């Protein structure tokens, strides 16, 4: 099962994990990215390239399924304006054993951060808006997967 989508609503994590648990594997791993509360942050805007985003997410999920023996991969990314505490991205994997589930989960979020067409902009309490700069650490994290 490969499930990759760009969504405006928050992912239902219990439902997503239930889908993965139903695949008969022994290990389910997940990662959820949340809008972190920071001084002066009012909201976080996720700009997407919709026509390409879903295909890019699907290709990243497919790459994980090609590299690890997975029973299921889920990769959901939101767009729009999100409040502090809201879910931005959900990654879930199911495998027979824990190592591929956990490794693929780390791979998926590293690649989603560097290879999917989304851009973050902070909305500040003072009304200003600021584009988030790409981080070298994210490029390095993605590069470790070759």
């Amino acid at each position, binding site marked *: 099962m490969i499930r990759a989508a760009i969504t405006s609503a928050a992912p239902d994590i219990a439902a997503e994990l239930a889908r993965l648990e139903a695949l008969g594997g022994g290990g389910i791993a997940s990662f959820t990215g949340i809008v972190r509360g920071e001084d002066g942050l009012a909201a976080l805007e996720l*700009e997407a*390239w919709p026509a390409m985003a879903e295909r890019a997410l699907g290709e990243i999920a497919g790459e994980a399924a090609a590299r690890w023996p997975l029973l299921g991969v889920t990769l959901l990314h939101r767009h729009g304006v999100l409040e502090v505490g809201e879910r931005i991205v959900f990654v879930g994997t199911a495998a027979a054993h824990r190592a591929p589930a956990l490794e693929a989960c780390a791979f998926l979020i590293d690649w989603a*951060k560097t290879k*999917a067409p989304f851009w973050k902009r902070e909305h500040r309490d003072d009304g200003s808006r600021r584009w988030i700069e790409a981080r070298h650490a994210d490029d390095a994290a993605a590069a470790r997967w070759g």
Partner: protein
Amino acid sequence: MSVLRLLYFARVREAIGRDGEEIERPAMAETIADLVDLLAARGGGYAEALADRSRLRAALDQRFVPLDAPLADARELALFPPVTGG
């Protein structure tokens, strides 16, 4: 004469002030970088959006490619900053 559809995202879109446009493919532009030079020469928001090539990324017909990639017969070129989702 062929038409090239340009798409702009995030900081690039904001500086240029529009999310895309259609142009006639310039005969002199062999690579994406050549075309970016021509766009930047328009000045104003274009110059600002495209000034820092180290923070500019591109996709041709929805494939990420480096700026020195040939335009060839692509129909769509997207220009944007490095992605920051996830």
